[in-house]
Structures are given as structure tokens and as C-alpha cells.
């Protein structure tokens, strides 16, 4: 079977800080990582490959430095890595991104054969849109299963599998045919500590670069100009100031002070008279 995983390289959101003077994010020195959800997608694909045979391809759209993310994916066990990198993609919104990744995936299919299961993360931690995966699935017109937390009963002969996905109110089990497109949650699996041969192979294998020249990507659907959504302004939310530490001799005293402070709020809510 052939598994194709879409991975994004993102700044580690936990380390991004805000410069309140300029109202921008401080990205300097913030490490670029594989989007955490996408790592679980890679892990899932590698496990399926180990169980049923086949190969795992990964693709990432981003600047040349995104090669690091792809190398890491290979050291987790992916076999083929593709970097989709071209200036024409700059400023793409999710519609344009899903177009470019779809076109790249078609090229990968040409080179590596048809895909049985496509994987993406549930969402990227920088933009948090959760739109790219559904966008690509729609373009391929394959069944989309989002928020996947378990993969069961894979039948490579009949080309079916079952997925457990999260609902607002619980979970549901979905059966689908392959090819299909999954976006995955972190709960899907725990990452394994990869064997050394994976790392060696990753170090030895180079990443193939895809761009507007070696794929059939049409520039008129790419980049800022051809993205329907535009950013009008970006700003930092007002800084939450460090508030007041309530201190006192006794816990009761402290709690009483607290009560007095929030009483007005409770009043507006009609909790107290």
C-alpha cells in the first residue's frame, strides 16, 4: 500500500512570544518543528506500512529550510520525501495551499504510484485552520475522515478500513473505502523511538524538490494574488497584565477579599443580589 502524508513545518508555538511594543510576533530563535499532529500522521502511516507492506511518502510545502522537517519524517520511517517549494506559493491561503498540495500529490502519484490513504494533521498549530486537509480531500474527491483517533480493520484486499473519529458528543466508527483522506488527532498513537537504520537511511536519502517547473501546477491558482482571503491587519491582543496577588494572614481572609473583588461581576451575572 502507498501512504502519503502532508506535513507542515511550523514555528514552535509554545516558544513564540509577542513584542507588545511593535505588535508583532518574535520568531527569532524559535525553532521550526513538524506540526505536532502531523507527526502522529507519519507514525500512523509508518505503522501501517510495517504491518501491511508498501511505502510512505511525505510532502511539505514551504521554504527550503522545510527540508529539515522532511528529513525528520524520513528518520521516523518515511520512504520518500518531497519538498514543494517555489516563490509562486508565497502568501497562499488555505484554498491556494490545498490546490498546490493537490497538484504536487498528483505528481507524486505519477512517480510513486496510486495512494491508498492520505494523511494530514487535524490542524496546524500556527494557523489553526484545519482546512488544508479537507481541501485536498475534496479536490481528490475521496472520502474525508477528520479527527481520527483510531485505525482498525484495515483490509488491503477489499480496500476498506475503519476509523474511529471524535464527535462533539463522543466518537463514531466509520467504514470507508480506499483511497481515503484522514486528518488525525494526537491520541491516534504515541510516537516511537525510531530504530537507527531509519535515521541512517534518512541521512543518506535526499529530498526531491517539486516546483512549478516539474509539476503541472498552474500559477494562476497560487500565491497571495490568487488567494480569495487576504489579511487586512494583524495585531496582538491587548496584553493581559499581571493582576493582583491576594495576600492575607488566613485562607479565610484571602477568600473574603477575593469575594469582595468579584462581587460586582457576580452581580452583573445575577448570581447575587
Amino acid at each position: 500500500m502507498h501512504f502519503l502524508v502532508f506535513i507542515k513545518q511550523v514555528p514552535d508555538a509554545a516558544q513564540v512570544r509577542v513584542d507588545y511594543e511593535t505588535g508583532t510576533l518574535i520568531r527569532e530563535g524559535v525553532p521550526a518543528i513538524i506540526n505536532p499532529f502531523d507527526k502522529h500522521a507519519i507514525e500512523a502511516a509508518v505503522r501501517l506500512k510495517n504491518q501491511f507492506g508498501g511505502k510512505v511518502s511525505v510532502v511539505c510545502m514551504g521554504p527550503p529550510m522545510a527540508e529539515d522537517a522532511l528529513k525528520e519524517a524520513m528518520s521516523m520511517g518515511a520512504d520518500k520525501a518531497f519538498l514543494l517549494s517555489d516563490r509562486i506559493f508565497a502568501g497562499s491561503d488555505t484554498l491556494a495551499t490545498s490546490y498546490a498540495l493537490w497538484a504536487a500529490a498528483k505528481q507524486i502519484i505519477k512517480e510513486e504510484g496510486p495512494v491508498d490513504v492520505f494523511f494530514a494533521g487535524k490542524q496546524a498549530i500556527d494557523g489553526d485552520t484545519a482546512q488544508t486537509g479537507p481541501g485536498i480531500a475534496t479536490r481528490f474527491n475521496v472520502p474525508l475522515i477528520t479527527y481520527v483517533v483510531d485505525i482498525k480493520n484495515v483490509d488491503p484486499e477489499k480496500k476498506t478500513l475503519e476509523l474511529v473519529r471524535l464527535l462533539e458528543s463522543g466518537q463514531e466508527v466509520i467504514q470507508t473505502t480506499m483511497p481515503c483522506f484522514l486528518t488525525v488527532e494526537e491520541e491516534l498513537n504515541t510516537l516511537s523511538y525510531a530504530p537507527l537504520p531509519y535515521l541512517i537511511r534518512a541521512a543518506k536519502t535526499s529530498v526531491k524538490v517539486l516546483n512549478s517547473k516539474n509539476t503541472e501546477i498552474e500559477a494562476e491558482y497560487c500565491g497571495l494574488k490568487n488567494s480569495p482571503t487576504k489579511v487586512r491587519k494583524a495585531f496582538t491582543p491587548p496584553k493581559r497584565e499581571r493582576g493582583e496577588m491576594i495576600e492575607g494572614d488566613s485562607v479565610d481572609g484571602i477568600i473574603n477579599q477575593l469575594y469582595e473583588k468579584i462581587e460586582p461581576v457576580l452581580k452583573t451575572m445575577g448570581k447575587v443580589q
Partner: protein
Amino acid sequence: MIKQDISKYKHVWVFIEHENGEVARVSFELLTKARELAKDLGCEVHAFTVGDKVEQFADEVFKYGAKKFFVIEDPFLKDYITEPYRDAIVHLIEKHKPEVVLIGATTLGRDLAGTIATVLQTGLTADTTALDIDPKTKNLLMTRPTFGGNLMATIFCPDNRPQMSTSRPGVYKAIEEPAKGQVVKEEFEFDKSKYTKQIIEKIIEEGEKVNLGFYDIVVSGGFGMGSKENMKLIQELADVLGGTWAASRKAVQAGWAPQTRQVGQTGQTVHPKIYIACGISGAIQHQAGMKSSEVIIAINKDPDAPIFEIATYGIMGDVIEVLPKMTQMFKEKLGKA
């Protein structure tokens, strides 16, 4: 990019999300917000949905000000499945050309919106927390947090219609404003062989269906609570305050609370009037889900815990000692003793 004649598009549409015969509250919140937008645009608010027996929601929908309710009914649509829902909704949208389409940023809404926008080849802004109309251009301005809430971006979609947004539950208040509405039933022919996906089983977590966004007061427990038993202290306080309880991811991972109660980047986002963080360190991923609460109260025994950096009121102390006393005090003050 596909060029469109955008002048043909009119009215603000709100998707009515439903499950097990019940409308999701976020749909009413969005109808309420849509009334404001429609006023600014000089147009009407319309609701739409697809499913089996969905006309029954008409009364509720009109109560929140929708002038029309577009529906496609088909037993095939009994349960939500992405693709048939998408195809039916795309049919409605292409036929009636709304200017704005609002969908709740729920699990279902986020699953659906991305695929619809792709078919329609229009822009979609996810997870918005503010919607406004630009007075000059009449474009919809959609504001949303990114980078775990560290940055806000205002996004617009000038050349494509409809302008689509998913909006977070709990951001707008649902306020009734009854209108006399009209149900518009549409037909859609399904080629059922096209859909190769089916639901085998639904596991509804009884009693745990909780949308933290509905509550004005959220009492949240973290790893500092120490044990599953101690989480009761949180629940008791929440009960007395008439709020709900929630947890940090570490508490969820420890098995002290269900995932459905997790607040944060990978959980729910809440904007209550009062958020009480108990034994929560305040990691950035947690903050992403609660930073915009009006009043934040933090109880932690570590004076350097990052939660104090954003807390309106901080109490340095042991939750095991503070919480029971706090519950007792509120019981007395709120007259529930």
C-alpha cells in the same frame, strides 16, 4: 483564481447544525450575530440546513430572526456524513447565492466548511472570534486568533462569494428576536453509489456532552489537583457558582477528566466571565484556550507559575486547602447554604 460576478450574491446565511434531533446552540448564537451583520448590509438573515426531518427546526430558527429557512430533507441524510451533506449544501448555495455563510466552528462545522469552500472555490476563515462589516466596502471582516492566541488577524475575502467563516461557539450570545419566516424546501438527487463511507457505530459519551463555551463561569483543574478524587473539589465549586468544570490537558491525560472537558489549544476555547484555574501552571497551550476570559482567578502554590502572569487575581496556596473553603464561602454568599 476563479473570477466571479459577486454582485449576484445576497443575504447572510447561517448553517443550522443538528445532531440527534437537536439544534446546536452555536447556530442560534450565529443567527443572533447574523442579524447585526444583515442590518449593516441591508439584507436578510436566512438559515439553512440539510438532513432527515429538519423542517421541525423552523420555529426555533425563526425565533432567532431568520426570515427564510432553506432545507433539503432526505432520509439518506439522517446522520452527518461529510460528502452527501457537502453536496446538498453546495446545491443550496449555488442556487441561492448567499453573500455570507456562517457555520459553527464545531467538530462537525469544521469538517464541513473546508470541503464546501473548496468546491465553491471561495475563501473560508476558520475559528473567528469577531465579525464586522467594513462600512466602506461592505466586505465581511473576520477576526481570528492564530499562533495559540498570541496574534489576531483580521481577514477578508474581497473578490469571491460567499464569504465564509466558521465561528467559535460561545463567542456571541444567543438572543431571541422572533421573525415571521418561510421554509423553502429544495430537492437534491443523490447518486448514492458515489458515497462509499458509512457510520458503523456511534459512541455517545452520556452526560459528558458538554460545550464549555456556554458557561459564564468555568472552574478548571490541573495536574496540581493531585488525584481524580480531588477533582470533586472543582466540581463542587462549579456547582455552587452555577458554572461548569474543566481541566488542563495534563489532568485529562492523567485520566482525571474526559477529553471533552479539556481547555486549550487542543481542547476547547472558552471566554467566560470568570475562569478559576486551580493547580494549573498556565502553559501557553492552556492559555490559548482561556486567555480571553474576563476575570481569571488562579490558585497555585508556586508563586512563579506562569498562570499568575495573566491572572486578574492570584492566590498563592494549596488547592486542597483553599477550594473547600471557597466553596463554603460562596455557598453562604450566594445564599445556597
